[in-house]
C-alpha cells in the first residue's frame, strides 16, 4: 500500500526499527476516519509528517556519520591527506580539461542565436577556405535567398595618433549587416547603420572596451569625439562590451566597410570574410545547397575568374582547426584516464583500509548496525573526502586556467581564459560526486559484507582471496591507463621535437622584428615609402651590433596568407591545378638579414625600379615546380598582373609555420610596387640581425622611426625566435599538460602496485614466515613478490599497448609524421612500466625477505 511505499523515504535503519509500528499507527488513525474530508486531512498530515521526519531522520544519520567520520579521519591523517590530495589532482585535472574544451568546442559562442551564424568561404582546388572577393560577395548576397542577413568584414590595421604617442591598432572593418546579424548591443552609443557604409559618409568607429579604457580612460563622453586613424578623422559612435571579441580577440576597433566600384573589378582579389545568419530552422547544409547553385551560375558567368570556385558554408562555432580539436579531445581523454586511475587508486586504498578496520566494523555489526547503515557510513566518509579533495581540485583548476590559454585558438570570438561559472562548477561537482561514489561504493559494499566474520580469529584468508583479486584488477586498470597516457604523451613529445627541429628556412637566433605599418593613403606613393624605409634602415644599420636590416611585407609565420596565382610562359594553366605562390615585397638585404640562403643569381636591389625590367627572386620549390631541369635565371612567369623575370633563387621558407608545407615563395623588389598598388603588401615589418641584447637598441630605434615620421608607431616588437616558438606553443603547452597527467598516472600506478603488494606481504606474513622456516631462500621469496607485481604489470602493459595504439591512430593527424606505432616510444613506454613495477614492488619484496619466521609463528 501507499503508506508502506512512502516509508521508503526514511533511512533504512529507521524504517527497519519503527516502520511496522508507524504503519500500525497509520492503520489505527485511518480506522477513526469517517468522511472523505477526514481522509484527505489525514493524508495531507501524514504526507507532511513523513517528509519532515524523513529529512530529520536522514539529517540525524548524516550528523552521526559525519561525526564518526571526522573522528576516524583525525586518527589517520596520512590516509586522509593522501585521499584528499589524490582526489584534488584527479578532479582538478578533469575540471581544467573540461573547462577549456567546453569553452573552445562545446559551449555556444557568446553571441545571441550563435548556432544560426555561418561563415562563407570561396573554395578552390587545394584551398578549402579562402576569403571572398568583393565582387563574389556582392553576387552571393544578391543571388541567394536562404540567409536572413549576409555581411562582410576584413582585417584592418591603423595608426591612432593625437592624444599621446601614436599606436598601431588592429581592428576590423565591417558592413552594417555584420553587427545586425551578430545581434550585439554596444555598451555605449550605437552600432553601424547602412548610412555609415555609404561612400562619402563621415568616417565612424566603434571602440573595444580595452581600447576605450586604455586610451580614453573609460571616458563616457567619448561618443561623438573625433579621433585620427592614419591621419584621417573618425567619429566615435559606440563602445562595445568587454566580452565582445568578434572576429578575434585582438580587435581593438571597428570601422564601417565601404566598397567603391573599383573594388568589384578584380574577382580574384580575395580579401573579405563573409558571415551570414540563417533563419530559424534552416541548416548550414540547406544553405550550402543553394550556394552551390549560385556558385555554378557565377562560374558560368565568369568562366575565367571563377573557374572551379565553389562556396563553403560552415557554422561559426566550427571554425576550429582539426588539430586543435584533436589536441583538446586528447586532453579530455587523458584527464578522464587520470580520473579513472585516481578512483581505482583510492578504491584500493579504501579496500586496504577496510581490512585494517575489520575489527571496528565487526564490532559495530555485532552491536546491531545493519549493513545498510555501514555502507552509508562508509560512503559518507568517502564522499566527505571527495568533497574536500574536489574543492581543492576546483581551486587548482581555476589557478591552472591561464596556463591553458594557449590552447584557445584565436580564430573564435571567445575570451582567452575560460570563465569559471555554474556550468564548470556543476561539472566539477558531478565529477567529485562520481569520484566519491566511484571509489567509495565497492570498498563500502565489500567491507560491510565482511561483517562479524572479522571478529573470528584466522578469518583473514577467507575474505582476502577474492578481495585481492579485485584489487589486482584495479591495479591492472591503473597500469593500462598509465601506459596509454605515457605512450600518447611520448608520441606527442616526439611530434613536438620533430616540429621544433624543422628548419624554418631562416636563422631565427639574433633577429629582432617589429612592425611599422605605414598608413594609407599617406604612404600610397612608392617614393614616399622608399624615403621612409631608407631613412629608418640607414639609421638602424648604423647602430652598434646590427649586422643587417631589411623590410618585408610580413615576417613568415606572423602572416601566413598572401598567396596569388602563377602562370608560366603565357601558358594558360589547367584551372584545376591552379597554382599559387606566396608573395612578399622586400627591400635589399632581406635574405642576408634573415639568413635565407641565396642559391643562385642575386638579391633584389635598389636599382630594380618601375623604370627597369620587373624582376623577382623565387624560392627553390618555385624553381622545382616550373623549371626542374633548366637554369631558372632569366626565366619569365606571370604573377600579379605582369610578366616577371627571375633574377635570383633562395632557399624555401616555412611561411605557413613549421607544421605545414608552404606554397613556393616569390619576392618582389619594393621599388617595383606601383603607387597605391596592393598596398596590403607594402613592406611593414622590419627585421634586424643584431648581436648582443636587442632591448638595448630599442630606444635608439624608436628615435630613428620618430625622426623619419613622428606620427609613426612601432608595434609587435618580438624576436624571430619567439615567433617560431609561438608557432608550436599550443603543442608545447599541451605536451606539458599531458606530460604532467602521464607522470601523475605513472606515479599513482606505482603507488597502487606498492600498496597492493605491501598488503599482500603483510597479510601473508605467516605463510612467508613458514616458507622461510622450512628453508626457502631469500632470493626465492624476493622473486615471488616481484613476480606478483610483474604479472599485474604485464597484463596492464599488454592492454595498454593495444589501447595506446588505437589512441595514436585516432590522433595521427597531429603527430606530424611520427608513426602511431613509433617503436622507440612504445619501447620507452614498456620500459617505464617495467621500471615502475620494479620500483613499486621493491619495498614489499624487501619486507618479505625480512619477515622473522619465529615472531610470525609465535604470533599465531
Amino acid at each position, binding site marked *: 500500500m501507499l503508506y508502506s511505499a512512502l516509508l521508503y523515504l526514511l533511512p533504512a535503519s529507521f524504517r527497519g526499527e519503527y516502520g511496522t*509500528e508507524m504503519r500500525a499507527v497509520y492503520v489505527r488513525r485511518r480506522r477513526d476516519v469517517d468522511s472523505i474530508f477526514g481522509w484527505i486531512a489525514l493524508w495531507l498530515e501524514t504526507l507532511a509528517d*513523513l517528509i519532515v*521526519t524523513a529529512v530529520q531522520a536522514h539529517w*540525524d544519520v548524516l550528523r552521526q556519520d559525519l561525526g564518526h567520520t571526522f573522528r576516524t579521519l583525525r586518527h589517520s591523517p596520512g590516509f586522509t591527506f593522501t585521499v584528499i590530495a589524490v582526489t584534488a589532482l584527479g578532479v582538478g585535472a578533469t575540471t581544467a580539461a573540461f573547462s577549456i574544451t567546453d569553452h573552445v568546442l562545446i559551449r555556444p559562442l557568446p553571441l545571441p542565436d550563435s548556432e544560426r551564424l555561418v561563415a562563407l568561404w570561396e573554395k578552390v582546388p587545394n584551398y578549402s577556405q579562402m576569403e571572398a572577393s568583393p565582387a563574389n560577395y556582392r553576387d552571393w548576397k544578391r543571388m541567394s535567398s536562404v540567409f536572413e542577413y549576409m555581411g562582410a568584414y576584413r582585417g584592418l590595421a591603423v595608426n591612432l595618433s593625437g592624444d599621446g604617442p601614436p599606436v598601431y591598432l588592429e581592428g576590423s572593418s565591417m558592413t552594417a549587416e555584420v553587427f545586425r546579424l551578430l545581434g550585439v548591443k554596444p555598451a555605449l552609443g550605437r552600432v553601424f547603420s547602412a548610412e555609415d557604409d555609404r561612400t562619402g559618409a563621415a568616417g565612424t568607429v566603434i571602440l573595444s572596451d580595452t581600447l576605450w579604457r586604455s586610451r580614453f580612460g573609460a571616458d563616457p563622453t567619448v561618443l561623438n569625439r573625433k579621433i585620427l586613424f592614419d591621419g584621417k578623422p573618425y567619429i566615435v559612435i559606440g563602445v562595445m562590451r568587454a566580452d565582445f571579441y568578434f572576429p578575434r580577440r585582438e580587435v581593438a576597433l571597428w570601422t564601417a566597410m565601404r566598397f567603391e566600384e573599383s573594388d568589384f573589378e578584380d574577382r580574384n582579389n580575395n580579401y573579405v570574410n563573409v558571415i551570414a545568419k540563417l533563419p530559424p530552422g534552416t541548416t548550414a547544409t540547406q544553405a550550402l545547397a543553394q550556394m552551390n547553385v549560385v556558385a555554378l551560375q557565377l562560374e558560368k558567368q565568369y568562366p575565367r575568374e571563377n573557374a572551379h570556385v565553389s562556396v563553403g558554408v560552415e557554422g561559426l562555432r566550427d571554425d576550429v582547426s582539426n588539430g586543435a580539436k584533436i589536441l583538446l579531445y586528447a586532453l579530455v581523454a587523458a584527464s578522464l584516464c587520470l580520473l579513472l586511475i585516481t578512483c581505482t587508486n583510492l578504491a584500493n586504498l579504501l579496500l586496504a583500509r577496510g581490512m585494517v578496520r575489520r575489527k571496528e566494523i565487526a564490532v559495530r555489526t555485532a552491536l546491531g548496525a545493519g549493513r545498510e547503515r555501514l555502507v552509508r557510513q562508509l560512503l559518507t566518509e568517502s564522499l566527505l573526502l571527495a568533497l574536500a579533495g574536489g574543492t581543492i581540485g576546483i581551486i587548482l583548476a581555476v589557478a591552472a586556467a591561464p596556463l591553458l590559454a594557449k590552447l584557445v585558438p584565436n580564430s573564435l570570438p571567445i575570451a582567452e581564459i575560460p570563465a569559471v561559472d555554474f556550468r564548470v562548477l556543476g561539472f566539477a561537482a558531478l565529477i567529485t560526486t562520481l569520484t566519491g561514489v566511484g571509489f567509495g561504493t565497492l570498498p563500502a559494499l565489500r567491507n560491510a559484507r565482511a561483517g562479524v566474520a572479522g571478529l573470528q580469529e584466522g578469518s583473514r584468508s577467507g575474505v582476502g582471496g577474492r578481495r585481492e583479486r579485485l584489487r589486482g584488477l584495479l591495479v591492472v586498470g591503473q597500469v593500462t591507463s598509465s601506459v596509454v597516457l605515457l605512450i600518447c604523451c611520448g608520441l606527442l613529445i616526439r611530434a613536438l621535437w620533430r616540429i621544433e627541429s624543422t628548419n624554418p628556412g631562416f636563422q631565427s637566433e639574433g633577429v629582432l622584428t617589429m612592425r611599422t605599418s605605414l598608413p594609407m593613403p599617406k604612404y600610397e606613393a612608392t617614393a614616399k615609402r622608399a624615403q621612409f624605409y631608407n631613412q629608418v634602415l640607414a639609421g638602424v644599420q648604423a647602430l652598434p651590433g646590427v649586422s643587417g636590416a631589411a623590410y618585408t611585407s610580413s615576417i613568415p609565420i606572423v602572416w601566413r596568407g598572401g598567396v596569388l596565382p602563377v602562370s608560366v610562359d603565357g601558358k594558360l594553366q589547367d584551372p584545376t591545378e591552379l597554382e599559387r605562390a606566396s608573395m612578399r615585397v622586400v627591400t635589399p638585404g632581406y635574405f642576408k638579414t634573415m639568413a635565407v640562403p641565396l642559391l643562385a643569381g642575386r638579391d633584389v636591389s635598389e636599382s630594380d625600379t618601375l623604370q627597369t625590367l620587373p624582376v623577382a627572386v623565387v624560392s627553390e620549390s618555385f624553381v622545382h615546380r616550373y623549371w626542374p631541369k633548366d637554369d631558372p635565371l632569366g626565366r619569365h612567369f606571370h604573377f600579379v598582373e605582369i610578366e616577371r623575370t627571375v633574377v635570383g633563387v633562395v632557399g624555401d621558407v616555412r611561411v605557413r609555420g613549421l607544421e605545414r608545407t608552404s606554397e613556393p615563395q616569390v619576392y618582389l623588389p619594393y621599388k617595383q610596387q606601383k603607387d597605391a598598388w596592393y598596398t596590403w603588401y607594402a613592406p611593414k615589418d622590419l627585421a634586424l640581425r643584431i648581436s648582443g641584447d636587442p632591448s638595448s637598441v630599442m630606444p635608439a630605434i624608436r628615435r630613428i622611426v620618430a625622426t623619419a615620421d613622428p606620427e609613426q608607431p612601432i608595434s609587435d616588437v618580438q624576436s624571430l625566435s619567439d615567433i617560431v616558438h609561438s608557432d608550436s606553443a599550443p603543442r608545447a603547452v599541451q605536451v606539458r599538460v599531458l606530460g604532467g597527467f602521464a607522470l601523475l598516472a605513472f606515479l599513482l600506478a606505482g603507488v597502487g602496485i606498492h600498496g597492493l603488494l605491501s598488503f599482500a606481504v603483510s597479510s601473508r606474513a605467516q605463510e612467508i614466515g613458514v616458507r622461510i622456516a622450512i628453508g626457502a631462500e631469500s632470493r626465492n621469496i624476493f622473486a615471488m613478490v616481484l613476480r606478483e607485481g610483474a604479472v599485474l604489470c604485464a597484463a596492464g602493459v599488454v592492454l595498454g599497448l593495444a589501447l595506446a595504439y588505437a589512441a595514436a591512430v585516432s590522433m595521427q593527424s597531429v603527430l606530424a609524421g611520427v608513426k602511431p606505432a613509433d617503436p622507440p616510444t612504445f619501447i620507452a613506454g614498456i620500459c617505464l612500466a617495467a621500471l615502475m613495477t620494479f620500483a613499486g614492488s621493491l619495498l614489499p619484496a624487501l619486507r618479505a625477505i625480512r619477515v622473522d619466521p619465529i615472531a610470525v609463528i609465535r604470533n599465531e
Partner: protein
Amino acid sequence: MTDLLDPIPLLPLPPATFHILLALSDVDRHGYGIIQDVSARTNGELKLSAGTLYRSIQRMLEQGLIAETADRPEPELDDERRRYYRITPFGQDVARAEARRLVGLVELARVSGFVTGSA
C-alpha cells in the same frame, strides 16, 4: 551516551519529549497508546504524528530516557506488533528537572506580572 547522572545538558526538553515522558510516567505504553494519552492529557490540543513520535522515541532510547520493555500486557489486550516503552529512572530525573525548570520560568513570569488569576 549522555551522562546518566546529569539531566541538565538535556534541558530544555523538546515539548514532544516531555509529553512522552509524562505519558509514560504511570504506565508502560506502546506508540499509539502514547499518542492517545498525550492527546487526552492536552484535551486534544497536541496530536503527535507518527514521525515525530518515533523520531523522539529513537532519540530518547539513545539518551536513556526510556527503554523498551519485554513485559507485555494480558494476551487478549496485546498485539504482537506493538513495542512497549517504559520510563527509566534517568528519564524520571530528567522529567523532574524539566518540570522544575518550567515552574521556575512560570515563577519569573508571575513576578513580572504576566501570570494573572490563580495558579
